[in-house]
Every structure is written in C-alpha cells, then in structure tokens.
C-alpha cells in the first residue's frame, strides 16, 4: 500500500470550483442547443468565479497559520487566499465584459478556457515548490495562448497568439532552466528547503535565481521582458486583454514575491537590486513608449508595463510593508485595468473597429457612465486622489522609503509625471473633442445595449473609488496576508 498524501480539499476548493465550471462549460458547448450556449456557459463561468471567490474568502478566514498541502507542493496561507479572491473577482468581472462580445460560435469553449485559465492562476499563487510553480504557470499560459487567438477572423489575433506563444514559451523555458539550476545547486525544489540548503555565493544558484526572475518578469511584462505585451494586448479579444492585464499580473507578482522571499532570503541583497533595476527600466520604457501610442489598447499595454514597474518597486522593498503595498496596489490596479479595457470594448463594439485615441472623441458626453468611468480610471492610473491609485502609489513609495530606497521614490515620481501626459491625453479626447468634429459614426446605428458591460464598468468604478475611502480595511487584509510569509 502506497502512502497517499493527505489532501486538504478545502484549501484546493477555489481551483476545483473553477475547474468544475470549466468542465461544465465544455459540456454546454457540446450538449446544449446553440441558442442556449452563450447564456448558459457565461452563467456557468460567472458562477464558477463567484463560488471560487467565496471559497477563497472562506479559506482566508479559516487559515490562521500557513500550512503545506500535498507533500509540501502547495501552501495554504492567507497570501494565496487573498490573491485568489482578487483573481476570482477579476475573472467574474471579465465574464461580464465578455458577455456581449460579437462572436458567431465558440461561446462554450471561450468560457471553458477562461475559467481554466483562472483555475491555473488560482493554483499558481499557492505554489510552494518549483514543480508546482512551473505547472501553474504553464497551465494558465496555455489557456491564454488559445484565448488570445480566439477570434481567428480578426486580423492580428493569430499573429498576437503566435508571438505570445513563442515569447511566453521562451520565458517558461528560461524559468524551467533556472529551476533546474537551483535544484542542481541545492538538491531541493521546495521554496523553504531551498532557503535552508542554499550555500553562500553559489554561481549555479545565482544563475538559477536570475533565470527564475527573468521567467516571471516575462509574465508580469516587466521591461526588458515586455516585447510581447503591446502586440498581444492589441491583437487579443479585448475581454481577454482585460483578463490578462489584471489577473496575469496579479498572479505573477504575488508568486514572484513569494519565491524571492521564501526561497532566496539569503540572496536578498542581490535580488532587491535586480528587481529595482527591472522596476526602473519598466517605468522608463513603459511610460516613454506609451507617449507615442495612438491605439488605446497599445497605450494601455504600455501603461501596464509601467505599472509592473510600480509593483516591482514594492517587490524590491522586499519587506512585509512592501508585500502589503503590493497587495493593496493590485486591488485598484486590477479594477482600473479591467474597467478601462471594458470601456475600450464598449467603444469597439459600437464603432466596429479598433479604438484609437481619435475614436474616443466625444465618448465622455455621449455615454456619461463610460466617460466618467474612463476618466476616473485614467486619474487612478496616474495616482490622483479620490481613487485607490493614490494610496497604491503612496504605500509603494512609503515601503520603498522605509526600506531605504529613497531613489526609487524619485524614479516613481518622475515616471508618474511622464505618465500624466498620456493619461490626461485620453481624458482630453474623451471630453475636449467632439465626435461630430471627427465624423465618427457607430457601425450599426445606435450602440448595442449591453447591461452586463455597464455593470462591469460600474463595479470597477466602485472598487477604484472605494479603495480610496476604505483604504484601511483593504490594507488590513493585505497585512493579514503579508504576515504569512517569513520576513
């Protein structure tokens, strides 16, 4: 009789809920008549994300001290649970954004892939050794490769997917090679065991650390590992872009923090500098390149690169305060990302073509909700008050200042100054130019009625503004989650 590891099903329940939803959606794609597929599969996916969010919340509430699962390959702690809540809520909102996507067929498959990707991410943030890390990464990446190419009739969709596949595959390979080097150097794959077995300045170990960092940097789209981001964000269906920009970044950032702190505490002097450099490069590159963009999805892609920079400042702090700041930042950031891409999706469906800055003209006056929401999201990205973006930046900066990296604060401030130019430019197009002036006309007469999208935008708006006024409760949750790592 072989010993079977004890499995804590409750801790795995968010992943299982999403996997279940994915399976049901796949069945719907086959078994139900075509006219029911869209509604049924979307409802299933939404339900899956909702149940996963609730379960992750329960796990958060029930977990006082971190515990290992399944032969120490996974961990059950509040950090993972909080990240899972963020991911699942993001996924649920993305389902609402996807609802009215014009698509002839494949609804069931789409939602099956979306929930499967969500399951992969929810699994990924609980990874406790290098094998589950790689498994989780590939799990959600494979789903995303397909999702990016989902609208095969759209120009650029396949191209984007191919780029993502090649670059992402390369990134995964680098991560895997790095893992192998670390395993070679220490003989361990568990994060805490690596920390225990690490022996000083081992070149293998350091090379492995660098490669793991690079592999994760591909996923968070930190410069200089960001080359795929603008093309993929532009070519993917907008709802998928929304999911990627918020959820992929959340998952990869949390995991990066966990790996660095739990597996490589001895090398922290080295990786804090490396991460700080990545942060500076991302901030500089993302912001400067965003200045030159006309296509809104590309602009938001570069903006997400620059936000990877801000998040990496928190990682570079490497402290409990840094992790709190990171987790807090992810909440308004996810809401603003999903919300702004949702507005882009709305405009895209209305005009029937890619959304450039010019085609935003007059949107603010024609659609008050979308206009105000986009305005708030842009201000939030730029760290204005009355949005959680301000506190995100404030906490990240104070974590960096606390850790002695005052120069990172200055870099962040300078980057924010540059970013204003393009964020406010979006607002300018929304309100200060009229559509009539530029002869924009909706493709199919009046705009499509899309209550699900409006709900998604309104929800993102509430979170963005709410995280300003209710900063302390969110910070408390982040502090609870942050205390589960050994600092």
């Amino acid at each position, binding site marked *: 009789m072989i010993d079977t590891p004890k499995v804590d099903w409750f801790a795995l329940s968010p992943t299982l809920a999403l996997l279940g939803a994915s399976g049901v959606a796949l069945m719907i794609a086959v078994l139900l008549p075509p006219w029911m597929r869209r509604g049924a599969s979307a409802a299933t996916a939404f339900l899956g994300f909702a149940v996963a969010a609730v379960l992750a919340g329960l796990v958060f509430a029930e977990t006082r001290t971190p515990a290992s699962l399944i032969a120490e390959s996974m961990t059950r702690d509040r950090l993972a649970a909080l990240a899972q809540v963020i991911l699942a809520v993001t996924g649920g909102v993305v389902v609402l954004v996807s609802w009215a996507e014009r698509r002839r067929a494949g609804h069931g498959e789409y939602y099956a892939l979306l929930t499967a990707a969500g399951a992969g991410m929810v699994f990924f943030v609980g990874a406790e050794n290098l094998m589950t890390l790689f498994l989780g990464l590939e799990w959600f990446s494979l789903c995303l490769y397909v999702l990016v190419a989902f609208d095969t009739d759209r120009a650029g969709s396949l191209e984007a997917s191919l780029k993502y596949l090649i670059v992402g595959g390369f990134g995964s390979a680098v991560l895997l090679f790095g893992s192998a080097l670390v395993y070679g150097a220490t003989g361990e794959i568990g994060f805490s065991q690596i920390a225990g077995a690490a022996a000083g300045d081992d070149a293998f170990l350091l090379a492995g650390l660098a490669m793991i960092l690079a592999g994760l940097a591909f996923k968070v789209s930190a410069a200089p590992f960001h080359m795929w981001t603008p093309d993929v964000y532009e070519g993917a269906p907008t709802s998928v872009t929304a999911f990627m920009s918020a959820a992929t970044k959340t998952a990869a950032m949390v995991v990066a923090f966990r790996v660095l702190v739990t597996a490589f505490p001895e090398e922290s002097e080295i990786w804090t500098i490396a991460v700080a450099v990545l942060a500076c490069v991302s901030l500089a590159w993302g912001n400067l390149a965003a200045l030159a963009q006309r296509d809104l999805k590309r602009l938001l892609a570069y903006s997400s690169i620059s936000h990877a920079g801000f998040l990496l400042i928190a990682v570079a702090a490497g402290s409990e305060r840094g992790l*709190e700041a990171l987790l807090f930042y992810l909440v308004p950031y996810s809401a603003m990302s999903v919300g702004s891409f949702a507005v882009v999706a709305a405009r895209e469906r209305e005009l029937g073509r890619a959304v450039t800055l010019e085609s935003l003209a007059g949107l603010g*006056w024609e659609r008050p909700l979308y206009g105000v929401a986009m305005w708030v999201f842009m*201000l939030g990205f730029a*760290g*204005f*008050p*009355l949005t959680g973006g*301000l*506190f995100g*930046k*404030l*906490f990240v*900066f*104070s974590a960096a*200042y*606390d850790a002695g990296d*005052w120069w990172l*604060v*200055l870099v962040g*401030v300078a980057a*924010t*100054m540059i970013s*204003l*130019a393009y964020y*406010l430019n979006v*607002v*300018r197009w929304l*309100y*200060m130019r009229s559509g009539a002036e530029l002869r924009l006309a909706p493709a199919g007469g009046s705009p499509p009625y899309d209550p699900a999208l409006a709900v998604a935008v309104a929800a993102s708006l509430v979170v963005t503004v709410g995280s300003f006024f209710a*900063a*302390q409760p969110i*910070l*408390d949750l982040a*502090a609870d989650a942050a205390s589960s790592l050994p600092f």
Partner: protein
Amino acid sequence: MLTTFLILLPLVGALVVASLPLPRTATAGLAFLVALMEVGLWIVAALQFDFDDGGLQLGTTREWVESLGISYSVGFYGFSLWLAGVTVVVSAAAIGYALWAGRDRPRAYHALLLFLSGAVVATFAAQDLLLFYVSFEAMLIPLYVLVGVWGGARRLAATLTLVVYTMVGSLLMLASVVAFGVSQGTFSLLESGTSDNPWIFLGFAVAFAIKAPLFPFHGWLPLAYREAPVEVSALLSAIVSKAAIYGFLRIALPKFPEPVDDLTVLILVLSAAGLVYGSLLAFRAPDLRGIVAYSSMAQMGLIMLGVFALNDLGLDGAVLQSVAHALVSASMFLLVGMVERRCGTGELDGLGGMARGRPLLATVLITAGVIALAVPGSATFAGEFLIMAGVYDEGWGYAAIVALGIVLAAMYTLRLISAVLHVRPGPAVRDEALDLRPGELALVLPLVACLLVLSAWPALVSQSSFPDDRPAQVIAEGFR
C-alpha cells in the same frame, strides 16, 4: 462636524447637480443655491468660532489609514477660517456669474465648479498632510476639464501647460509628503514634529510656488488665465492661488524651521523679483485679462514677501492681503468678463469710453480698481503697509521694492480703468452695449461691499488670524 459639513456640502451638491436632469436654468440655479447655502454655513461657523482663543477649532479627527498614521483631520485656525470664508464668497459669485452667463453643458459645468470650491475649502481645513495633498490635488481635476472644455480658442494648450506645471509640483510634493510622513511616523500636522531636511522642504516649496504662482514658476499663468472661462480665472487667481499661501503658513514654515532659515533670502529675492516683473508685465499687457492675471502674480509675490518676513507684521499683512486680493481679483475678473461680453473682446485697442452712459459699470469698476491699487484707506493698503513694515526688518531694500510695487500697481490699474472707461469709444464698444444689469450688479456688489467693510476695519482679519495675535511665535512653535 461643521467643518465636515462645509467640505461636504459643495461636494454633495456637485453630485446632485450632475445627476439631476433639470433644465438649464434650474441646474445653474440649484448650483447657485448650494453655493449660497455654503456661504450661510460658513457664517454659522464663523459665529461659533472664538477668535480670541485662536487655537484649532471646529475640529474633527477620524482614523483613515491607521497603519501609516493617516487621518481625516480637519479644523480651522483664524487665518484658515478667513481664507475659507473668502473661498465660499468668491465661489458663490463665480457660480452666480456662470448662471448669468449661461454655459453649455450646465450640469457638468456647475458640478465641477462646486467640486472645485469644496476641494479648496478642504485644503484650507486639512490638518493632515495627506488630506491636504488629496484636496490640493483634487482641485486640479475640475480645473483641467473646466479650462479644457469651456475655455477659449487655445484651451488645449492652456490645459496642457496648467496641468504639466501643477502636476510636476504636486508630485514633488507627493515625494516630500511620503518622506516626511514616513520619517515622522504620522501624517497628522497636529502631531508631527519638525524636519531639517532641505530636500523635503523644497518639494513642498516648489509645489506651492507653482500653484501661487511665484516667479519663476509662472509659465502656466498667462495662457490659463486668458483661456479659462472668466469665472474660472476668477477662482484660479482669487482662491486656488491662496492654497499655496496656506501651504506655506501651515506646512512649509512651521515644519521646516531650519531650511526656511537657510532659504529665506532666496525666496524673498524671488518674491520681490516676481512683484516687480509681474507688475511690469501687467503694465505692458495688451488685454484686460493679461493685466489682471499678471497683477495677480505680482500680488502673490507681495504676499510671499510678507510671509517670509517671518514676523508678526508681515504675517498678519500676508493674511489680510490674501483675503483682500481674493476679493479684488475676483471682482476684477468678473468685471472683465462683463466687459468682454459686451464688446466681444478684451483687447485694450478695441475698448474705451464705456463710462459714458454706463454709470454703474464705471462706478463699480473704479471702486474695485481704486481698492486694487491700494489707495490709502483701503484694505489692500492696510495689507501692503503691514507687509512693507514687516519686510523692512529683513532689509530696507525689500520695503523699497514693495513701495515700488504699490506705484506700479497704481500705474497698471489706472491704465486698465482708463482703457475701458475713458479715452474715446473703441471700435468694439457699440452704443447699444448696456450698463451693468441688476443680476450682474448683485454678483459684484457683495464682493465690493466685503472689500469696503475690510477697508473700514482691516483689523477684523489681521488681528484675528493667529492665536493671541502672535503669528511669528505661533508658527515658530508649530501651531502647538
């Protein structure tokens, strides 16, 4: 609680105005009503305020982000209550002017005006560094759109320079706020101590210098003041600029005594340069708004001289002059707007001879102008005299420059008055152009009346601004 109501009333009013689908005039009227209620609320606050006590009053403190020591902490000192008072009065006049002028998209426009006035009141009430930053920054959100959507032909360029300048300052301030707050362990202005870090001080000083604006940070001023709707220009020069003065008085001076000592001479010299330079530009400006805009810059230089004289006379004078200048520049801008509406231009070449047959316009403009040029007996004269006496301690040269500034003020103000009212009728002045209408009169007269009251009794403000009327000592002790 009263302070919180003062902040919330315009903000809630803004939401209501923005969301109620009322017809054009009803929307504007509702906004005007909210602004008048705000004035009433301020009067209630002023009646409750004990000016003899002079410590922080009407205060409220609630925890906001405990982990970092950030709180929602508001309250008033004498000087900040006066600044808030002038804010609500000028806002009411500006919103009334918008009602009179009838702007496009009235729901958004009036909501943004109300939002702006709420943010300014919050700035003057803030006793927490982060809350101050939030309100200071929040002012920019409505300003950006107000100038960018309802401004003149070059509005896009105007918003761009306005936002770039002010945001550069604000973000430097954010870095300073973080550094100061984290090193002190609290963001509360009431609890934090002092810092001797000159870089943190500079972050604040540059932000305030841009907002004021002080020479040489005034690059955004001419375009913004010219292109904004005239009531927005009035708000910008009258009250938004005073947020910078409040920042110096409440944050920069008390929290950074050593850097202030080191940099006093530099700031005094820049302020004096701004006073002279702004006055000369105002004298050379080809249009009405240019004159008022640059004179505003000159006056901010003057007020800064008073602030950085760092003695009782100078500080009292600075507060009095801030209040008086707010009223003067608001009435001047509104009058400029009324002239522009009649003539379709603010270019001096097109104007002239409007006094004939328009006695009300002539009387009000001359009254406001005479107060603006600090004729002896006016509130501005009292303020400038106090500043001059105060800055004399720092060196007689500064006092001489203040005197020169008064002379130059007389020159550019008289130039404005004569260009509008006297000489021969300009090509843009049609015979049918009416005198001031009762509605317009009702907007400007209260401002002028406030000025006349202050002229008769300047001590009302100057002796009730700081605890025990010992401003220098109060600031040196950090308002404890």
